[in-house]
């Protein structure tokens, strides 16, 4: 038992702040006053900003594990939290008007978003198998409820239920794996488990079995093939504002999960889990890319694209070097920005009573709003990995880390799938630029200014980081230095 120092507080102050803010917002909800939702929205954004300010100083501190080995405060946690706040804030800007005109702007929407953020924060700071599990459950339960908030939509309910059942299955597998590891090692905190795994030789097989279950659970959460079936349905069924959120911030948390479970707890079993990830990665890229070609619904298409990108991301993870980990982190950050932007565009195209979910709804956008057509194009080319966008450097850094460990064949496989992927992204660009304006644009309503500004910044960030990726790359490298 480590003694508790009062100064340890600063390491989990952001978590306490968010949890406290959740309570405050729930209290404010009880009162009735004018423009209540605007106030609550503002409070939520302020909470995220405050959390960012509280998290920032931790970057310069030494890595610490506090609360009896439950909670890690290191560079990985700090960076991941920073990205989570930023992405969530952006997702909320995209969501505000969307939920308002669809009559489900309830305080709970914001509260559940914050509890999801709290869950993700616990995940990325998890130094203990159980605290990781706790974080996953907090995140997942919030997301189930968020999806189901649109009670009148049967699609949303179906998505929520599917997500719940699959999520429970995934969590079950994960927990089973954890229990096996606990069974052989009698440890739950990651550092001790790693030490045990390094020393033991007779329990290696049992540990490996546990890792297999953990990987399956992680694959459920990441949505990689063959545990991907929920992704398209959930992405399509959820209200678009929720999809934008699900497709972005939780991916950063998923990176945290992978980092803690595989990179930190079982570096000695790297040779074994590399094989599993290889299969997951290749099959995700193959299946995601091929099925995405057949989609007409843009949310479904982006869902399959998400599966593909998770495959590419796993390539960076399976390398197992510091450079590979940094590349994977960079990939996730880049992907999160692109995915958020893409769903932001879907929200941009929608209006009261109209969900612009078909790719055809984007027809001829260039003729009416060239600037947003340009942003859509930038997003699509970035997802396809064409320079000068950040998507290109994400792919470049992953490819470089693969080739660094002499897996050139894998790099060739990966780029061939990237080529296949280019086709369906190009098709969206084609719809936006080459087709005549369709019905959806006839009664088009321009969304509020804050959404447009953030969406523009999102698009510009993708080009800006594509031209000057160094800062972000350096950040990722320092995390794994």
């Amino acid at each position, binding site marked *: 038992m480590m003694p508790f120092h009062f100064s340890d507080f600063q390491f989990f102050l952001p978590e306490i702040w968010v949890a406290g803010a959740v309570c405050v917002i729930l209290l404010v909800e009880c009162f009735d006053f004018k423009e209540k939702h605007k106030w609550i929205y503002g409070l939520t954004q302020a909470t995220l900003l405050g959390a960012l300010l509280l998290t920032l100083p931790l970057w310069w501190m030494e890595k610490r594990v506090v609360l009896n080995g439950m909670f890690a405060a290191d560079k990985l946690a700090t960076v991941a939290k920073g990205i989570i706040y930023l992405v969530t804030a952006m997702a909320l800007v995209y969501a505000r008007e969307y939920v308002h005109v669809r009559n489900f702007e309830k305080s709970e929407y914001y509260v559940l978003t914050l509890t999801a953020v709290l869950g993700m924060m616990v995940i990325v700071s998890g130094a203990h198998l159980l605290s990781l599990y706790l974080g996953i459950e907090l995140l997942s339960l919030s997301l189930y409820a968020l999806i189901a908030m649109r009670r009148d939509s049967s699609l949303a309910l179906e998505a929520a239920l599917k997500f719940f059942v699959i999520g429970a299955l995934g969590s079950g597998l994960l927990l089973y794996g954890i229990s096996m590891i606990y069974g052989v090692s009698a440890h739950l905190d990651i550092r001790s488990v790693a030490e045990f795994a390094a020393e033991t030789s007779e329990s290696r097989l049992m540990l490996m079995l546990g890792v297999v279950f953990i990987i399956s659970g992680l694959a459920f959460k990441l949505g990689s093939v063959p545990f991907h079936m929920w992704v398209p349905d959930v992405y399509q069924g959820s209200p678009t504002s929720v999809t934008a959120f699900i497709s972005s911030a939780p991916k950063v948390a998923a990176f945290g999960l992978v980092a803690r479970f595989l990179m930190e707890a079982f570096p000695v079993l790297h040779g074994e889990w590399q094989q599993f990830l290889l299969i997951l990665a290749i099959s995700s890229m193959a299946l995601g890319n091929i099925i995405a070609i057949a989609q007409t619904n843009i949310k479904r298409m982006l869902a399959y694209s998400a599966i593909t990108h998770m495959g590419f991301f796993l390539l960076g993870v399976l390398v197992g070097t510091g450079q590979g980990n940094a590349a994977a982190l960079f990939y996730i950050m880049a992907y999160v920005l692109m995915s958020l932007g893409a769903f932001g565009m879907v929200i941009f195209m929608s209006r009261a009573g109209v969900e612009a979910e078909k790719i055809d709804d984007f027809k001829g956008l260039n003729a009416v709003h060239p600037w947003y057509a340009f942003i859509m194009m930038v997003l699509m080319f970035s997802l396809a990995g064409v320079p000068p966008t950040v998507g290109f450097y994400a792919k470049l*850094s992953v*490819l470089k880390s693969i*080739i660094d460990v002499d897996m050139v064949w894998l790099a060739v496989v990966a*780029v061939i799938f990237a080529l296949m992927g280019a086709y369906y992204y190009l098709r969206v660009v084609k719809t936006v630029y*080459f087709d005549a304006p369709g019905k959806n644009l006839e009664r088009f309503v321009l969304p509020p200014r804050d959404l447009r500004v953030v969406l523009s910044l999102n698009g510009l960030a993708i080009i800006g980081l594509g031209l000057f990726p160094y800062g972000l*790359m350096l950040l990722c490298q320092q995390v794994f230095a």
Partner: protein
Amino acid sequence: MIEWPLLSLLIWLPITGGIFILFFSKSEWINPRWFALFTVAATWALCVPLILFFDRDASNMQFTETVSWIPTFNIHYALGVDGFSVPLILLTAFCTLLAVLAGWKSIQKHVAQYMAAFLIMMGLMHGVFAARDAILFYMFWESMLVPMFLIIGIWGGDNRVYATIKFFLYTFLGSILMLVALIYLGIQAGGFSIEDFQKMPLGLTAQLFIFIAFFMAFAVKVPMWPVHTWLPDAHVEAPTGGSVILAAIMLKMGAYGFLRLSLPIAPDASLLLNKWIIALSLIAIVYIGFVSLVQRDMKKLIAYSSIAHMGFVTLGLFVGYLLIAEQRSVESMQLGIEGAFVQVISHGFISAALFLCVGVLYDRMHSRLIGDYGAVVDRMPIFAVFFVLFALANSGLPGTSGFVGEFMVILSTLQANFWIAALAAITLIVGAAYNLWLVKRVIFGQASHGGISSLEDIDFRECVMLLLLAGAVLFVGLYPAALLNLMHTSVDSLLQQMMQSKIG
């Protein structure tokens, strides 16, 4: 030497101009056409010091700029030009002017975007020819696809979507494998400087794989048979300006890639595989020559003839290795490469000119079919002069630029193998056949329908475009030494790299 970053200006001035046009496309006080012309003119002005201060006798890169860009991967923003890059940069600037002028009247929708796309592409193409860092090179190389994709897709013909997606995917397939090769080389060399790649020793197996990856990228761009099928589609559907840039610059990038990357980085693999490349080049020259003969669409005919002419380029580049095997003199190798490069520049002018001519006719009659024309000379005598001149240049008439390159390549090939040279030379007759037959059916003969009689001859703008091109074609044809002097030193250093084994 001058201190200011000339190459960066050549790259970023047009790009900035293009972005500027996009932002102010809705305001009244800026006319996108004139603004684009002004930007191109300013870029031309930048080319003057480029050629004046270029040292012909220095074999190293000139006007170099090096700034660390992504230190984590040791990637630099490194620019520089040699005797191969300078003519290509000049050609790019020249052809962009043509593309802007070609769209002056015929483009009526999204004018600002059209002009911006060409200006941005101009900067990116300059970047390809000036990059000294592999990743920078790749970045320019790939981003160039985006404006071209839009140009064909937005302003193209009826089947434009198919053509442009095919174009993009074909070129993307090639270049993405090149990316893998570049990353591999970068890891081996510990940095991405192309000069380091060229100096680095490399085992034969690695060289073979790298050569094949590069070959995929460059063969698609050149294009070589059998990966040429995107070209006729893209050309036919692209607007005139797009065809000009495609034929005059994009295809040249393949040849430039061979010169800059394939030959110096993988000389042993090139030596091993040169017979295959020569065979493919001959197929392009002979077979595609016959394919051109039977085309009914003028643009398709010129597109196929481009493939045949680019066959001479690859032949000239790779015939050098046959000469080594035959133990011929270095001079004949030099002749082959210089011939190939003259052909690159010359074909840039001639194909641009022919596509512009077709564009002139298309603007008036909205048809590209040869059968829809005839007796055009009666109504458009000035145009007919230009058309005949360019068609003859295309078939290699002495005195025009088309003759010089092909003649040099054939001469060089002759010293390596008589039969290859004979085969290549005989197909010049096919070239003459399809060009002259085209002239006969379009310019002379019987008018196919009454519409011909209402044709109007070319106006001042069109006349300027064609006059510029005619001047260029004749200048290179009559005084090729101007071009040869520019690249002589670079060819020498390339030959040294080609002949030096890198194994061990």
